[in-house]
């Protein structure tokens, strides 16, 4: 046999998370050590039960710490996924049942736990649906975690591996990627695992390059001596893995890697820069938020304010609407954290399929066309007034504006304004300080609202386009419908024309227009939106740097020309191609990242 791994070998896997890593491989062996069955003396049974309980407690504490870390890192999806794991750890099958087995059979915890998991495995394997079958992986991971606590010496934390390691494994659980610290783990390479797996979601949120569907045996061909190659390169953009790279390959990737680092660093530094085009046209770049902890990012990235505060998220898991006092406290905290920057608070967008337990919507066969948002609020004036009062009280502490969701008729805006005014007068009579001139905004999410934008613009201080909903309603396409996913296209000519219509009417009446849907956070759309005349873009805080960069890399002159061209095209595909070309031309460095 030739000297192991002297030739450069290229493998191809499925790219899951972009990025480039160069490092030494670390094989994450499955920790399924042989489990020894042993008998427990009658007098020691309770001690064994206590030992098992302690192991479960330990695992539970670890998961909760992980969840809390993910929350701090703003990876909310990841934290929610771990929620299910926390519930599994408290499942009677893993707790009450195992303890009963210990007492009944006088056997050790490891053996009995393994039995329970093996039984579950058999059950999971009989399920036809691969999606449900996948859930066994979560249980397996949990089993390993508990075992780790039962045999303290067997557990291996991903933070105990050499820094800069590229972790190679058969598969990953969400806990593995959640634990991974970017310093120790520079990339993941696995044999199996899909882009929508929980592990992938967490890895993507952390920005750790990840390639799956790789023949990992080829990486460690000499399994007997477990000799791993000295270095490998992982290209998360293309899915390529290079084993034992030649010097020139190494050089090429080192250059790419440093270009990427440089680009990411530049993006981070845009915090101090203005969101203006290179010919000096200033845009308001603000953020869509739900939690007070997100405000810090706005200051860090140099955002101009909050363009959308979703008020319902904080209360969705509750049984009933929060009191005026509770709401005031939450809004006040936001306003104070904003430190003088403006904040637009949107009234509850609830009802239909999003509701609170004590206020279930009566059955609607079409919740998206049902009693939601402003329609729900106007039919529940007590709830609406209570929120308006809380917002008005918060307005005394900073630059607050209020927005009404899903307005589809002028009468709704008028009625809402009337209630707002009533609330203001009441508060003043009660001696509460309120801002004299709180700005009022109208969300444009429904085509009818777009078409009567002129009538609405006369009655409010700004318009905010919620493109996510507007595109669905305008194109009559359910975004979650896989069969029709190609039809859902924000680049559809009708959407571009609607935005142009809304901006024109707003300009006539001298009021600004914000775009707060997903397209605002897509740098390919930035010049188009600017060229159409949009004055403010509101995006999730972590997208502020990339959009600011896109703004700074275009001129309002070019942007307007782009918009004019787009308005002449007749299909979503043509418009998308136009935007992509312009994007590659304006911001070529972004493309190293996006390939």
């Amino acid at each position, binding site marked *: 046999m030739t000297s192991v791994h002297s030739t450069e070998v290229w493998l191809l896997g499925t790219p899951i998370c972009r990025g480039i890593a160069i490092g030494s491989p670390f094989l994450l062996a499955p920790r399924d050590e042989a489990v020894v069955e042993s008998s427990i003396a009658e007098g020691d049974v309770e001690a064994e039960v206590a030992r098992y309980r302690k192991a479960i407690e330990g695992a539970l504490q670890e998961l909760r710490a992980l969840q809390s870390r993910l929350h701090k890192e703003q990876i909310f999806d990841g934290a929610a*996924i771990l*929620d*299910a794991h926390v*519930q*599994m750890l408290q*499942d*009677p*099958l*893993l707790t009450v049942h195992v303890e009963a087995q210990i007492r009944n059979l006088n056997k050790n915890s490891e053996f009995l736990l393994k039995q329970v998991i093996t039984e*579950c495995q058999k*059950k*999971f394997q009989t*399920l*036809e*649906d691969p*999606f*449900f079958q996948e*859930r066994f992986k979560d*249980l397996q991971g949990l089993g390993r975690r508990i075992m780790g606590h039962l045999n303290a010496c067997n557990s291996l934390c991903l933070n105990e591996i050499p820094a800069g390691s590229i972790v190679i494994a058969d598969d990953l659980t969400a806990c593995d990627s959640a634990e991974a610290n970017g310093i120790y783990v520079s990339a993941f390479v696995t044999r199996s695992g899909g882009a929508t797996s929980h592990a992938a979601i967490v890895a993507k949120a952390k920005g750790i390059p990840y390639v799956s569907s790789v023949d990992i045996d080829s990486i460690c061909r000499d399994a007997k001596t477990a000799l791993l190659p000295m270095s490998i390169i992982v290209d998360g953009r293309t899915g390529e893995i290079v084993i034992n790279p030649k010097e020139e390959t190494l050089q090429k990737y080192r250059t790419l890697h440093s270009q990427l680092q440089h680009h990411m660093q530049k993006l981070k530094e845009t915090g101090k820069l203005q969101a203006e085009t290179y010919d000096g046209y200033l845009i308001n770049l603000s953020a869509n938020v739900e939690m007070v902890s997100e405000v810090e990012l706005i200051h860090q990235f140099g955002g101009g304010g909050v363009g959308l505060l979703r008020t319902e998220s904080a209360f*969705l898991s509750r049984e009933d609407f929060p009191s005026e006092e509770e709401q005031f406290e939450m809004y006040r905290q936001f306003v104070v954290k904003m430190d003088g920057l403006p904040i637009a608070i949107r009234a509850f967008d609830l009802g239909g*399929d*999003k*509701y609170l*337990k004590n206020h*279930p*919507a009566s*059955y609607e066969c079409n919740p998206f066309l049902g009693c939601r948002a402003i329609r729900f609020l106007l039919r529940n004036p007590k709830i609406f007034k209570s929120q308006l009062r809380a917002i008005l009280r918060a307005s005394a502490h900073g630059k607050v504006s209020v927005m009404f969701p899903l307005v589809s008729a002028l009468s709704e805006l008028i009625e809402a304004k009337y209630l707002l005014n009533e609330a203001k007068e009441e508060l003043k009579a009660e001696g509460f300080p309120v801002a004299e001139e709180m700005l009022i905004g109208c969300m444009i999410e429904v085509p009818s609202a777009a078409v009567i934008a002129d009538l609405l613009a006369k009655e409010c201080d700004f318009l905010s386009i919620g493109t996510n909903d507007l595109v669905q309603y305008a194109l009559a396409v359910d975004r*979650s419908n896989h069969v029709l996913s190609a039809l859902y296209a924000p680049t559809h000519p009708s959407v571009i024309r609607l935005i142009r219509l809304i901006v024109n009417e707003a300009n006539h009446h001298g009021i600004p227009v914000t775009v707060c849907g997903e397209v605002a956070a897509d740098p390919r759309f930035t010049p188009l939106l600017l060229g159409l005349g949009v004055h403010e873009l509101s995006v999730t805080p972590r997208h502020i740097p990339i959009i600011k960069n896109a703004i700074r890399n275009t001129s309002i002159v070019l942007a307007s020309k782009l918009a004019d061209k787009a308005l002449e095209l007749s299909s979503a595909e043509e418009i998308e191609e136009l935007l992509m070309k312009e994007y590659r031309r304006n911001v070529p460095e972004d493309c190293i990242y996006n390939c």
Partner: protein
Amino acid sequence: MKLIRKVRVKNVLGLHTRPATVIVKLLQNCKSEVTFACRREIINAKSILSILMLAAKQHSQITVTVDGEDAEEIMGKLAMAFDSRFGE
């Protein structure tokens, strides 16, 4: 009091992780025994693993049995949870 009721799974992805988590959280402090019967299996609804192993797909019919002092309240909450697609 023992209550028995048939419900349908409306969620597109069936009773997957999210709905299962909602159910066990809902039943956390429940004082009654709760079981789900689907096809020919009967499981303890307070066990998230059991719910997942049931792999109930969209449109499956589930017979919910709640037996205990807070049966009415729990059955009401469960029925509503199923009906509202568990908030999805």
